[in-house]
């Protein structure tokens, strides 16, 4: 009796994840009640309201979850490739058959229901990646294999960009977290972070002038960090050579002298000195590369040179390549521009809604900012505002901790998979969840640019809810299969 029950995948599924899933769904539905509530409305559950509809989506999602748990987990591995290419095809044709909704051609109608293939493409790509990584002899540290994996990610990404769904496309960058886990060199991840860092620093402080000089704070800070990052790389990849210390001392000395000269003799632009110093480091490393034939010198030199070129090209890109409204969005986000009526309006209203919640919030259905429609997209992309306003700091923290718990639990489960397929798929799932939380909550709190991607299990809509349920429960089924096989 116990044995047959124990073998039923429904009862062996990880209960922690299921509990977190139920908590998040409940919390999400409550937030949608708050966000879509109209003044004087009495019914919450009628079909006509968004609250009622969301309840239907949740019911469907629960059936989907049950259905997935009842499938044989080996199917997933078998259909992964076919599914992937089927979705590539679907994504390819979508722009031609989709209706134009707010400038994006990504929604396909099936009768009364509109679905967004991009939401499900994530899942297909995750399965395909897992499949690829589990092929015999696949090694992420090998350049060829890494490029294959990246290609697999970039293909749907490009297609989704063509549907003008930049937000959904960006989600595919989340997979880099999985690639890192599977052995992609850490310096790739570090370089990506460093680039974002230069970009933010140079624009955020670009117009500030360092006192006593003619130096732009942003530019010189970015150059200083290029110098320090290079030294850090030298220290990590070429320890015991002493280059890092020597270059650090010389650099500090030169910068100090330049500062003194500018302060006491003639004020001038110190970034020229720093730029010269960076160029010198590049030359120094290239010379060592030629001298010692150690390729790492070359790579680090490329990093330094690339960083410097990137720094100066972002300025160009921001002012020449991007559209004016995109430029303002970036400037507003970085706090360079104060714009509460135009580009900054959404974020400002969102901050007001969250900020007015206080410690414990205004209470269920009592939020004035969301109820009176001050926050745009309040039940989809900006749903976290409602949590912040009605449930306050306590509610917001609980939601964030639930997501942290979910992601940590997924890491734990992924690591205990006996197959590469299971582990890679698990990492794909948690990377996607993490990216969504990172960007969505960050955007609502004014820490990230306004990129329209939903908050898992919270944002209103069937597509995203089913997409996330699909992602999560396929993994749970794989985990059950793994458990059953290991313990017999």
């Amino acid at each position, binding site marked *: 009796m116990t044995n047959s029950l124990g073998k039923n995948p429904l009862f062996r599924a990880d209960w922690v994840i299921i509990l977190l899933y139920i908590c998040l769904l409940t919390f999400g539905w409550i937030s949608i009640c708050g966000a879509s509530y109209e*003044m*004087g409305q009495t019914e919450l559950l009628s079909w006509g309201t968004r609250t009622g509809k969301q309840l239907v989506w949740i019911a469907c999602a629960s059936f989907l979850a049950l259905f997935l748990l009842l499938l044989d987990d080996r199917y997933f591995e078998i259909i992964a490739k076919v599914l992937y290419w089927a979705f590539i095809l679907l994504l390819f044709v979508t722009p031609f058959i989709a209706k134009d909704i707010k400038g994006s051609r990504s929604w396909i109608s099936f009768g009364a229901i509109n679905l967004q293939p991009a939401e499900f493409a994530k899942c297909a790509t995750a399965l395909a990646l897992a499949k690829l990584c589990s092929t015999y002899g696949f*090694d*992420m*540290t090998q350049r060829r294999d890494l490029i294959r994996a990246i290609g697999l990610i970039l293909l749907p990404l490009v297609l989704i960009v063509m549907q003008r769904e930049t937000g959904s496309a960006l989600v595919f960058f989340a997979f880099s*977290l999985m690639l*890192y*886990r*599977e*052995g992609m060199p850490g310096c790739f991840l570090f370089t990506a972070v460093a680039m974002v860092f230069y970009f933010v620093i140079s624009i955020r402080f670009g117009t500030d002038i360092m006192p006593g000089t003619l130096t732009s704070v942003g530019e010189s800070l970015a150059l200083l960090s290029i110098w320090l990052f290079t030294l850090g790389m030298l220290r990590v990849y070429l320890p015991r050579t002493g280059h890092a210390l020597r270059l650090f001392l010389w650099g500090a000395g030169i910068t100090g002298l330049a500062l003194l000269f500018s302060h006491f003799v003639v004020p001038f632009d110190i970034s020229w000195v720093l730029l010269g110093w960076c160029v010198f480091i590049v030359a120094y490393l290239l010379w060592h590369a030629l001298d010692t034939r150690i390729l790492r010198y070359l790579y680090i030199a490329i990093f330094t040179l690339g960083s410097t070129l990137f720094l100066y090209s972002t300025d160009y890109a921001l002012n020449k390549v991007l559209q004016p409204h995109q430029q303002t969005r970036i400037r507003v986000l970085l706090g360079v521009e104060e714009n509460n009526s135009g580009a900054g309006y959404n974020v400002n*209203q969102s*901050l*007001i*809604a*969250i*900020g*007015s*919640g*206080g*410690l414990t919030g205004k209470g269920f259905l009592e939020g*004035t*900012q969301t*109820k*009176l*429609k*001050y926050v745009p997209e309040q039940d989809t992309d900006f749903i976290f505002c409602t949590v*912040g306003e009605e449930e*306050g*700091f306590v509610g*917001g*923290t609980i939601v*964030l*901790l639930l*997501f*942290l718990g979910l*992601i*940590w639990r997924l*890491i734990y489960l*992924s*690591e205990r998979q006996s197959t*590469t397929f299971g*582990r890679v798929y698990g*990492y794909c799932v948690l990377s996607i969840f*993490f990216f969504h*939380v*990172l960007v969505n*909550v*960050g955007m609502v*709190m004014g*820490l990230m640019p306004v990129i329209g991607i939903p908050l898992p299990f919270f944002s209103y809509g069937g597509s995203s809810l089913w997409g996330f349920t699909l992602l999560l429960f396929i993994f749970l089924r794989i985990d059950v299969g793994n458990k059953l096989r290991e313990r017999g």
Partner: protein
Amino acid sequence: MGSSKQFSNRRFVIGGIVALIIIIYIARLFSLQVMSDKYKISAESNALYKEIIYPSRGQVLDRNGELLVYNEPSYNIMVVMQEQVGVDTAEFCKIIGITPEVYVEKMAEIKAKRNYSRYTPQIFMAQIPAEEFSVIREKLSRFKGFSFEKRSSRRYATPHAAHILGDVGEVNEKEIANDEYYKNGDIIGKLGIERSYEKQLRGQKGMKVLLRDVRGRIKGRFEEGKHDKQAVPGSDITLTIDMKLQALAERLLEGKVGSIVAIEPKTGEVLCMASSPTYDPNLLVGRDRGKNHQALKQNPRKPMLNRAVMGTYPPGSTFKITQTLIGLQEGIITPEMRFPCSRGFNYKGLHVGCHGHAAPIALVPAIATSCNSYFCWNLYRMFDDRTKYKTVQEGMTRWKDHLVAMGYGYKLGIDLPSEARGMIPNADYYDKYLGKKWNGLTVISISIGQGEVTSTPLQIANLGAMVANRGYFYTPHVVKKIQGGALDTLYTKPRRPMIDEKWFTYAVEGMRSAVTGGTCKGANIPGLDVCGKTGTAQNRGQDHSAFMGFAPKDDPRIAVAVYIENGGFGATFAVPIGALIIEQYLNGELSSGSQARANSLQARKISYPLYDK
């Protein structure tokens, strides 16, 4: 499988990154929600619309209960831009009575406003009087998007007392900055008691807290009206002014520039305060307010100026009463002491002219005939008395202190805005302008109310009240009663000069004999025992004509000051006018002879080349 174990430690890096981000977000959440109130306030200003309930402004009555200022409904025409489409503008302009250009201009003004919203009513045209609006009212409904709002505007029942009543107008930026009670578009008192009793008259605004959505539409009450506040209507105010007397005063001043102030000595209540030229307070009401205001401002005779409290003039011989009291108190003169006068004061080559009268002359006849010489001797002996004061400065300081205690040289403190203080020079003043080498002779003209000395007509009337009371006065005030409130204690406590009561007898005797047989004969009304003192003040152009007096002598009920710019001798204009005011107040009416005199005085005009050039 090798690679999987090789990199499995990276799970801690990934788990760490996730935890770090979540911690950063929680910290951000904390700083937004718990550390700062900024967003709470923004949220309120977003969603809560405070609809102001305007209280009715207090009414104003005269001392006999006659209604002077009241409120009348007026109308604002409102427009909701969103709904205002396809309106026949030509037809609309015809009904409202404006040109299409004005229409376009007004629409542009509305759109340029700071809190402009397409969805809420905006003021298209304000303060349309009820009678004008009744024509517009029925037709307004034909125009989509236009509606009206009932407000109230100030109305004045009499064309008199404009300077006391003052006016109301929209608050300016400075007034908003000074008092957060006021918001753009509010009404505030600008002049007169409307300004000085603004707080009592305005009442307290109430408000309804309503919920407003992102488009500015009202969605209901906030928390069932828990935070609503009732408006508190403004208090009615009763003036000390006797409107009949005020009307007579204004009538007598027609065609002249000057002012009349009458005070009830026992209370300090101002019975009338006229300043000429004046204007009809209704000019500053309604839509033409701006235009009329501009015209009044540009009038060379300055009708907006309340000369009774803002005009500073040489007090002339009315000032001799103060000199009498100071001299007696300081022991410089005695009532019996006589001084020579040979057509004036002649000493050490200095000559101050006087007119013919018997000499040497004692105090009471000196007041009656207004002998300049007597008062020059008085001041000279005081300032140069080295047995009593070590220096001339010390003497002068004593002199000044007496005058300040009598209400000269500083604002008296009347409850009207912009009171002038007049000028009583002190020793420092002369030290500065004449060097240290000055003495009683150098400054002798101040003894007869000329030279540097100036005062307001109110201060002169107050002197009359102080003498009438034989040694005290109440700070003059124009408000008798505030509904549900008390007068400022400033107006209920007597103020005493540093003069013993006994010396007032001589001043009173002098003023009485001036009326019975001196310069003020024109003020001798049988049965009223008038006491008075003329003044003829030299200045640029024709002399100013002044009178200061009170009556009846033994139970004074009115003190009056009349000051007519360029009116010549005191006896020419000021004395007969003063007499009529006294008669009107004490008898309640004018005798037929007085009526005729009043008519002839009203008709007499003085030419003012200095104003009208």
